[in-house]
């Protein structure tokens, strides 16, 4: 291959200008406002999904604790019946919740993967690899392909920038439709999961949990009354001290379930805001909903962590 040195020396500044122009033209296109919002949403959603699973576990565990406490309190007067020992939430119904929450998690993860920086980072890695291969081609007869480090960096950046624009184009084309399509199921799922929980004044898991603590408190009172004549002063004090601890745990559990329900409502609201602001550059409404969601999720996380540490 014959390459004119004169033409090579003129081609280099041209390439530099072209690459620089591409970089300038395409920079700033890396992550659209919608993509950043979907990435932020999926991060916050993950926390809510985890805490909802924790709520079901808490209800089942507390029901089991109440069964044990009642058994201990009534053992001398009521024969032990193994058939009465069972989990509160039916396994097949709980499996559906697990499946649905895993589906939501998968949606949140996919949204994060598609919307986040990772595809662009991957693209930059590939572009760098391609740039390194270009630099290796430095044999004399391939002078036409020879590029210096500055050109290589510019080429890599330009290729990555083109790739970013292509990725962003694909996102902008497909994401709004997907968000629209997912909005109703997400609203429905969050509503049903909220209905599962209810409040301490309506039928649902919050009431069941509250009464399971009532049962434990009553069983503890019964245990103290039945055995107080046989207890030392210290033993009696220890048993009595359990009562306020149970009341406190009841209050915290009530709050945890209420916060989980609130967080599910915030998740639905944040997704609705995400879907309705898909074509807007900035979205204060979405940011507000997301802030509420993050705050709720953090609050619940604190509750469940403190409860699990006490177990």
């Amino acid at each position: 291959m014959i390459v004119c040195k004169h033409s090579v020396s003129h081609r280099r500044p041209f390439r530099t200008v072209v690459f620089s122009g591409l970089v300038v033209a395409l920079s700033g296109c890396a992550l659209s406002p919608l993509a950043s919002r979907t990435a932020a949403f999926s991060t916050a959603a993950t926390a809510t999904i985890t805490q909802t699973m924790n709520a079901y576990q808490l209800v089942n565990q507390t029901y089991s604790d109440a069964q044990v406490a009642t058994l201990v309190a009534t053992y001398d007067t009521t024969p032990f019946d193994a058939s009465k020992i069972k989990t509160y939430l039916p396994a097949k119904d709980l499996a559906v919740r697990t499946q649905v929450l895993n589906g939501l998690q998968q949606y949140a993860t996919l949204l994060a993967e598609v919307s986040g920086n990772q595809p662009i980072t991957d693209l930059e890695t590939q572009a760098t690899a391609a740039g390194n291969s270009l630099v290796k081609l430095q044999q004399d007869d391939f002078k036409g392909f020879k590029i210096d480090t500055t050109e290589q960096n510019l080429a890599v950046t330009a290729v990555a920038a083109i790739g970013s624009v292509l990725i962003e184009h694909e996102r902008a084309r497909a994401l709004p439709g997907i968000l629209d399509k997912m909005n109703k199921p997400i609203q429905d799922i969050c509503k049903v999961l909220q209905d599962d929980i209810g409040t301490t004044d309506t039928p649902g898991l919050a009431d069941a949990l509250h009464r399971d603590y009532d049962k434990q408190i009553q069983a503890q009172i019964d245990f103290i009354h039945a055995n107080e004549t046989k207890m030392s002063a210290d033993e009696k004090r220890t048993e009595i001290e359990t009562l306020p601890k149970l009341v406190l745990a009841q209050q915290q559990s009530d709050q945890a379930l209420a916060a989980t329900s609130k967080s599910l409502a915030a998740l639905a609201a944040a997704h609705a805001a995400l879907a309705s602001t898909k074509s807007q550059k900035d979205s204060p409404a979405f940011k507000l909903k997301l802030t509420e969601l993050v705050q709720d999720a953090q609050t619940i996380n604190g509750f469940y962590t403190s409860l699990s540490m006490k177990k």
Partner: protein
Amino acid sequence: MSTTPPATPLTGTADPKQAAFDALKGVLKSAQAAMNNPANTQAARDVARALWNATNDQLDALDQAVFTGNTVQLQAAAAAMTPGMTQLKALQTQISSLGNDLKEAASILSGIDNAVMELGVLGLI
């Protein structure tokens, strides 16, 4: 000319589950008060305890019925996620294929590089 009578407002539309729940909670509260009242005879307290246990069982069943009753709705909502999820997975595949195309380009360039080196070793270039 016939006239349509004005619509009568509906009354008594309260959720029957909520009504049963409220009634049971009332019974539970009074039963608990009676079983823990030291002024009552042991027999009266035993009766109150039996009532408290039975009411708790009924409330457990009611709370559980909400949970199990919601399962079908939840399955339907989850099924409605499928088309959106399929589109999202397709988008992910499309985006990752852009990176793969560049990877392919890089491997072709590496291949050319290796070929040039081998030709150089053989003294052909």
